[in-house]
């Protein structure tokens, strides 16, 4: 009998600890919904939109997307949930989508870095009658999955534009640093970039680095620099940080042209100070903000843009416009 009581106490205390752990996790959420109480129609608060992306919390790029989602939810007064897998894990991500679909939201926003792995989960969402919008990655496949709209930048063209700009700056032997091996969109960017460089008479190759380990990335770029590279294209803030550190280590800042995808305060300061040649901006804030607007209007009034790709980029940030963009970047909007 004694052990019965112990057992019950044990289960009880475990539940309490679990409950405590979870309430702590909930705490930051109400901040986003405070604005919702002032929303004009109570109806809007009932609109639930789920966002599942492949962007990890540690990536500054995705925190801007998340700011876009949260600001849209505040401005419109709709309820959102935002989820992403803990690592670049497509199987885990497809299961996050499954779980959100089981919750029956009024709209679903997903990024599609791997259509093979995510296709079935997205098709299941469409089959369940949930309107789906894809963002960021997946411009080439969204239609065949039954996704209504894609909000983002077409990857190959953006990479190609970067390659042209790089060749225009006189680069002959280029390196494309891929920090997220396994992401088809990044493969396309590198391909576009290298195609443009090759077209202009130069050569180039891809270097794979581990995004989670900046030291590893930096040393790999340093090693590659020894091969006579005169231009580096990185595909995101994690890559550009490592590449810039490698250039500083080798004393070749400015001599080796550095271009990157996506903006962070560091990248912008680098452009202002002439350490980086340019950055390709896809204005990812809009990739978080716009789908929430579109889905909320679709739920409330049944109106929807005619379909296709809503382009949020590419645009170039160079020394000329860097200062203006820096202010907004500090607010987590660019």
């Amino acid at each position, binding site marked *: 009998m004694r052990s019965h009581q112990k057992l019950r106490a044990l*289960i009880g205390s475990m539940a309490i600890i679990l409950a405590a752990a979870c309430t702590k996790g*909930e705490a930051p959420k109400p901040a986003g919904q405070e604005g919702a109480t002032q929303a004009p129609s109570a109806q809007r608060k009932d609109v639930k939109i789920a966002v599942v992306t492949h962007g990890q919390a540690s990536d500054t790029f995705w925190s801007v997307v998340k700011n876009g989602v949260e600001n849209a939810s505040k401005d419109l007064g709709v309820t959102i949930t935002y989820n992403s897998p803990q690592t670049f894990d497509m199987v885990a991500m497809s299961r996050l989508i499954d*779980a959100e679909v089981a919750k029956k939201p009024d709209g679903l926003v997903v990024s599609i870095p791997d259509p093979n792995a995510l296709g079935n989960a997205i098709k299941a969402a469409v089959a369940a009658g949930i309107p789906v919008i894809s963002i960021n990655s997946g411009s080439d496949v969204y239609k065949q999955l039954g996704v209504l709209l894609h909000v983002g930048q077409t990857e190959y063209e953006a990479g190609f534009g970067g390659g042209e700009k790089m060749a225009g700056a006189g680069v002959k032997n280029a390196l494309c640093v891929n920090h997220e091996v396994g992401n088809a969109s990044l493969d396309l960017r590198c391909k576009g970039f290298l195609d443009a460089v090759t077209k202009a008479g130069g050569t180039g190759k891809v270097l794979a680095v581990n995004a989670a380990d900046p030291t590893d990335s930096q040393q790999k770029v340093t090693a590659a620099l020894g091969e006579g590279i005169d231009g580096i294209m990185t595909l995101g803030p994690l890559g550009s940080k490592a590449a810039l550190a490698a250039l500083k280590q080798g004393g070749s800042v400015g001599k080796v042209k550095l271009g990157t995808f996506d903006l962070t305060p560091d990248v912008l300061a680098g452009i202002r100070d002439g350490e980086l040649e340019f950055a390709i901006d896809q204005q990812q804030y809009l990739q978080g903000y716009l789908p929430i607007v579109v889905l909320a209007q679709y739920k409330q009034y049944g109106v929807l843009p005619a379909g296709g790709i809503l382009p949020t980029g590419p645009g170039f940030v160079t020394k000329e416009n860097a200062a203006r963009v820096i202010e907004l970047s500090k607010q987590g909007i660019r």
Partner: protein
Amino acid sequence: MRRILNRPELGAACGVVAVWVFFALYAGGSGFLSKAGSATYLEIASELGILAAAVSLLMIAGEFDLSVGSMIAASGMTISLLCERLGWSIWAAIAVAMVLSLGVGFANGLVVVRTRLPSFIVTLGSLFILSGGTIGVTRFVTGRTQVGGLHEALHFDSAQAIFASRIGGFSVSVLWWVGVTALAAWVLLRTQFGNWIFGAGGAPEATRNLGVPVPRVKIALFMTTSFSACLIATFQAVKFTGSDVLRGTGKELEAILAAVLGGTLLTGGHGSVIGAAFGALLFGMVQQGIVFAGVDSDWYKVFLGAMLIVAVLVNTYVRVRAAEARR
């Protein structure tokens, strides 16, 4: 009562009930209790559970296998490449991947028992070799990091029926999980080989003196963990009609976590396959339950870490109580 308290899986079983009740109360309204909701966490638990069953056997025998995570990537890519590039039947590709995985497991085991190096280090080495080799070969052959189009492979339909079909909304891998767990539990508790496993981890010298071929037991177990990783890779490759080079990253630690949650000791000699199944179920429930509860996924690891510590504390507490009750 004493007999129940004595079971190593008690802690994890309590944890499963507590977590389920917690999410049922907290997130029941948002679909955690629905069939689709239950299916999502059971699917995760089933794949991890198959891996954890093999890993817990190996841990009871006193060894670790960190290479299972990258073995998933390597096996999945082997299947996808053979089908996509060479047009093989998917069954032939799966067979090759299985032979490959058994070979890697054999090599792991052989190095560990011959050199007497800690398996932690040896398999950390093979983790890197497999994961780098997978990226290298895949990029060399295809120039990409994902290979898809498996649904066009020869005999895909029959493979899909066996590895990736759904029965009443639930993934067929749940049945595999139950089967594998039952088989592993039977081997551990009812066969001579099972006694050897306990002996190899608990008192290797004494066991060897009794004439038990401890090295051979360990090599067989390394082959089992590697093979179970290949099985998971097959499930995922067929279900997601392709592979990427990062698949399975971190699964080695999740499997060890499930085994430890289930009452298996890190030092070997004590543990339970049934417990590992509960551990995997606990893991799956928390992973998906957090989504249903609408908790920001930024906090997921905090929750998981807290749960791990609580579960281990419960296990230790229960074991101490059980030892006292016996006196």
